């Protein structure tokens, strides 16, 4: 387990644990045998469904059984259920996988099963509200992913999943909402590069779609970054984000302004590493060189 420190256990405790593990292993192997047999028999019954639930709770890495579970649903359970029931079954699976994710936040199969569930939510509940169930489930998903990011703000699977949710929500959330979310995450800890990265993605798409003016919004970003620089000039996140803002460095006036502000920071905090992370960044090296030349001695 990650981050769990070594502890000394007594002989008795170790023996008791061994006994418990052996009993668990025995149950697991019996269940494993059973589920694979059912799969071989193409058993798509409720009973088969329940056995997959039991074994996946014990071992969510069993990708063959996740696949089998979906086959049971599409071939056995869904055809025998009305849409409202299908929606309930999928909601139950979303709850099951949320519980599993809390214990195993980095198991791919759990995340991908959630996606499958969301993509199979039926139309309904009524003809006037065809997207009703879908909207409810997808909205809930954003809440789930926020819970996951509260537990570990750098879980990249959760961030990837968040981008998937935001990209597929119908109707999509307002564009400013995600900027607000990243501001909150960055303010909580500006070393969290995952949040800066998300912010850069959101801005890039807003600029591209013309929903935000690139020039004015960049100005706001430079101010945000400047605050962070002064708080901790040794933080890499800030410098990488800064380099991204400067982009290819074609804007000489902007470069000159940024060099001046970094120079001021250096005068104030001469030991800071910003010279390493910031000014010497190789992509901008050539351009900084030009700009420095223009500044002159």
């Amino acid at each position, binding site marked *: *387990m*990650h*981050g*769990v*420190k*070594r502890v000394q256990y007594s002989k008795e405790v170790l023996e008791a644990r061994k006994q418990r593990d052996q009993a668990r292993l025995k149950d697991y192997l019996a269940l494993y045998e059973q589920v*694979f047999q059912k*799969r*071989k*028999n*193409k058993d798509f019954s409720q009973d088969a469904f329940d056995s997959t639930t039991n074994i996946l709770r014990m071992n969510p890495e069993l*990708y*063959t059984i996740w*696949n089998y579970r979906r086959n049971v649903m599409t071939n056995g359970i869904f055809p025998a259920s009305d849409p409202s029931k299908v929606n309930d079954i999928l909601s139950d699976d979303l709850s099951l996988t949320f519980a599993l994710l809390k214990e195993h936040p980095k198991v*791919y*199969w759990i*995340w*991908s099963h959630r996606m499958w569930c969301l993509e199979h939510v039926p139309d309904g509940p009524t003809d006037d509200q065809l997207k009703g169930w879908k909207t409810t489930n997808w909205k809930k998903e954003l809440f789930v992913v926020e819970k996951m990011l509260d537990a570990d703000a*750098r879980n*990249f699977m959760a*961030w*990837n999943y968040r*981008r998937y949710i935001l990209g597929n929500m119908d109707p999509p959330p307002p564009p400013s909402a995600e900027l607000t979310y990243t501001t909150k995450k960055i303010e909580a800890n500006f*070393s*969290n*590069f*995952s949040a800066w*990265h998300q912010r*850069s*993605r959101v801005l890039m798409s807003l600029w591209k779609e013309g929903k935000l003016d690139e020039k004015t919004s960049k100005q706001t970003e430079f101010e945000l970054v400047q605050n962070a620089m002064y708080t901790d000039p040794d*933080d*890499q*996140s800030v410098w*990488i984000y800064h*380099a*991204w803002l400067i982009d290819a460095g074609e804007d000489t006036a902007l470069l000159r302004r940024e060099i001046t502000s970094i120079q001021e920071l250096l005068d104030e905090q001469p030991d800071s590493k910003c010279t390493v*992370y910031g000014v010497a*960044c*190789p*992509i901008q090296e050539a351009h900084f060189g030009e700009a420095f030349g223009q500044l002159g001695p």
Partner: protein
Amino acid sequence: MKGAESGKDDYSEYDTPHLIMTYTALLSLAILRDDFERLNKPGILKLVRSCQRADGSFTSLPNGGDSDLRQVYCAFAISSILDDWSGIDVGSAVKYIQRCSNYEGGYGQSPGGEALGGTTYCALASLYLALSQSTSSVSPHLSPEERTRTIRWLLQNQTPVGGFSGRTNKVPDACYCFWAGASLHILGASEYVNVTALASFLSKCQFKFGGIAKAPEDTPDPYHTYMAVAALALYPPEGADKSYNLPKLNALWNTTEDTAEWIRSHIQRRS
């Protein structure tokens, strides 16, 4: 293996074939010095082919599963181990790899993702493995600017305590000493790694009763033990004692040169 190819039955008693497991199985067989007499090469190529998607990426399983740079690497490694690239559309796969590259300098797990040490290795190893394919051009699809930027990002992740972290502003971890170290090795930038600090970090991850943990004071596991030893095989500290004499490592396949040679003589030169 020929016997295990049970035709069209989706419900064999075995798990569905898996791209990552196929790569590790080939390496494991080579490590065990199997003669590869029973290797079903067309079957493996069929698996690889059926896993590639329209955007160039690969899924773990023929019928889906996750899809990111890890599977791309396994497809490339399998093709180069078999010395047969007919299971892959290399052009579209390379385009996918390039879409995962980001401004930090590393490669995200999938397009738009934050740069990660492990998937940066997958991207670079794939690009360089593709060079061994006769029809490809001599350039590894990396511009000098991209190469410099990637080297820079990787080096920034060597933390003051000597170990590499996997992402910007994360704590160092023994496995990233391999992912980042091997990436720098592939890029021909080994000389910039602080080998003394690296060895000092890894020795602190060592557990007094054996094995190496992800970080000092943590619990050792086989994965981090292997990765740490592999990193040291690429970066032995200067003036090290005999205990650091490790077999030469093939950074692209992530196996010893001896095993790589076994593969060349028993799989590649056979056909």
